[in-house]
């Protein structure tokens, strides 16, 4: 039979998997058997026929339900509506069974880690649809599906378990609409107005007409004033290379809004907004001195490649290329480098300084929103003296931080001092980067990325070093 003769419905239907069933008696059948056997036993022992009558309905029900043929296998089809989804996005899961005969089918979904069913987790019928959503990014197993076949009398049950496919859960991109543009852009057609004249649409100035200029670009008011023909000039429109660096070394903070979560969400948002602006975007995922990278590219598909690249390297301990010896394809000269990092790894900070000295224009988005946890301590004999600091408390002069509640014990002072030193170190790191000309902005993950970047998106960011671009 040629494929053109196959009906569309059959052609679209994917082949299922033939799975064997494990048959056993239901709880209902076991209870009936208990009643029947107990009644017969008592009737025999006590020689009271009324107990045989008590056993009769249960035994008859059991006998009547035994006549049906049990299928040894059934064909199960599982089809998710998507293999990729963003955090919180709903994914439908269609399941269907064939070959079960007169038996009723019950589906029970057991969601995997970080997978949340959006509706009912159990359904009856040969076909069913479940809806799930992914709570946190990562490569997730949707879970398992328990299939139970029941006969008409509900005395026998056939069980099987189906492993559901994997779902690539992408980090939900943060909100970002504006882009940071460099002052020097490569000579490549794009959408950012450059400082050179060209064939763009943004007005750049007026000059005297020379033969060959388009007639439509003549500025008649200026020509009338000066007495000679004047033409409008426009800014050239060019694109830029953007390299996103996601620091995957430290995952600190509350799960769901940790530094790594924010780094991936921010990088996903940046990838989307820069590719929408026709820029070439690449990504480097930094991990403990090593890095995995994806060369800059164009288009919507590049966004998914970038997120896939970041997800593939989320283990935190894998080593790719050395971060200091990245090839030119991964880090093109003159590219805008946007870094999402909590700046906790000293080697990473040193690498940033090194990149700056090599002439890259960088912008750091600080995603650190956590502090070292406070040690828990039992209360001292004095009562309040040994109480520990609450989580997130700052030594900013509040009564507790000043030891105002009945005095502080020496360990509490040590903790407070340690936290203060840690904060000063973090501030020093950021200060040193700013001194080198690397802007550092803080992002808390809740607000739009446009807000912390506002100071750098209103006007072009001055490109440093000699890149050869104009």
């Amino acid at each position, binding site marked *: 039979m040629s494929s053109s003769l196959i009906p569309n419905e059959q052609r679209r239907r994917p082949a299922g998997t033939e799975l064997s069933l494990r048959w056993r008696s239901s*709880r*209902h059948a*076991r*209870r*009936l058997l*208990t*009643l029947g056997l*107990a*009644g017969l036993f*008592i*009737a*025999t022992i*006590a*020689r*009271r*026929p*009324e*107990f*045989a*009558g*008590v*056993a*009769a*309905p*249960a*035994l*008859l*029900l059991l*006998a*009547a339900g035994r*006549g049906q043929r049990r299928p040894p296998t059934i064909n199960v089809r599982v089809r998710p509506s998507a293999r990729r989804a963003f955090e919180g996005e709903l994914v439908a899961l269609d399941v269907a069974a064939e070959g079960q005969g007169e038996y009723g089918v019950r589906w029970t979904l*057991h*969601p995997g*880690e970080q997978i949340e069913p959006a509706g009912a987790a159990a359904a009856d019928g040969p076909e069913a649809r479940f809806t799930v959503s992914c709570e946190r990014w990562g490569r997730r197993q949707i879970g398992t599906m328990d299939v139970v076949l*029941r006969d*008409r*009398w*509900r005395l026998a049950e056939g069980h099987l378990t189906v492993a559901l496919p994997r779902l690539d859960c992408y980090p939900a991109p943060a909100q970002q609409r504006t882009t940071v543009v460099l002052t020097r852009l490569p000579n490549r057609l794009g959408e950012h107005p450059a400082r050179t004249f060209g064939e763009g649409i943004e007005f750049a100035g007026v000059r005297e007409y020379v033969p060959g200029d388009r007639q439509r670009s003549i500025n008649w008011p200026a020509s009338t004033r000066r007495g000679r023909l004047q033409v409008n000039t426009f800014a050239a429109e060019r694109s830029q290379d953007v390299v996103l660096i996601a620091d995957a070394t430290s995952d600190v903070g509350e799960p769901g809004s940790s530094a790594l979560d924010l780094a991936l969400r921010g990088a996903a948002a940046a990838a989307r907004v820069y590719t929408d602006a026709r820029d070439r975007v690449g990504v480097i995922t930094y991990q403990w001195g090593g890095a995995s990278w994806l060369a800059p590219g164009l288009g919507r598909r590049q966004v998914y490649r970038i997120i896939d690249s970041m997800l593939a390297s989320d283990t935190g301990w894998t080593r790719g290329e050395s971060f200091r010896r990245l090839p030119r394809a991964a880090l093109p000269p003159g590219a805008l480098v946007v870094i999402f990092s909590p700046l906790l790894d000293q080697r990473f900070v040193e690498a940033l300084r090194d990149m700056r000295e090599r002439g890259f224009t960088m912008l750091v988005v600080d995603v650190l929103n956590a502090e070292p946890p406070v040690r828990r301590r039992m209360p001292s004999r004095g009562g309040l003296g040994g109480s520990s600091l609450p989580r997130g408390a700052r030594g900013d002069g509040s009564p507790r931080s000043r030891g105002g509640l009945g005095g502080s014990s020496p360990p509490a002072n040590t903790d407070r001092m340690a936290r203060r030193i840690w904060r000063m170190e973090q501030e020093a790191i950021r200060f040193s980067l700013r001194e080198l000309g690397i802007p550092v902005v803080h992002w808390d993950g809740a607000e739009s990325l446009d807000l912390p970047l506002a100071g750098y998106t209103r006007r072009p960011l001055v490109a440093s070093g000699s890149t050869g671009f104009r």
Partner: protein
Amino acid sequence: MSRSFGPLTIGPLTVGPVDAASAGVRVGAGLIGAGCVVWAALLPVHQGLADFALFLAIFGVAAGALRLALAGVPVPENSFLLPWPLRAWLGFLETLRKVPWEEGALIAVLWLEVLHPARPWHTAVLGAALIAYLLATHLAESGASPGVLRPQVRVLAIGAGLLALGAGAGMLPAAGPGAGSALLRLVAAGALIAAAGLVLPYVARHDAQDRG
């Protein structure tokens, strides 16, 4: 028409909305079970560990009803790093769901009934109530509608007839003195059950044809 009662919160776990119909079936199962215990315990006896049997019956029915009431409570996939009250609660739920409480209650109720002197019609009513208890428990735990019992109506009718015949056989005066007469009646009841079992496939087939 069914009515929703909204989510039920038990400790840190939340149960989904409880359907009024399924809640009614669960309550009904518990009430029928309680009725069976009361019926079997009428006219108290004080022999053969009757008090212990009564305790077992009450405990089994109560635990079975509690199992049905907590059937919708979800259990987390991973129980690592949970606080001990929650772990104790999960252990309690697991025990409640694994132990066959209804079977224990059935045996205890029959034990209680057999301790009484012969009262065939009383026993027949108890048998009907026990079957009703099992069917109600089955409906409550499977969430099925009572319509799923429709194919079993004929078999249940035959079973009810046999139940009545058994009670009638129990009420017949003994043909003669001694244990042989009682044994004869028992054999007659067994023969009735066997005959019904032989007829049953034809009844079930006829019922399947009607359904088809």
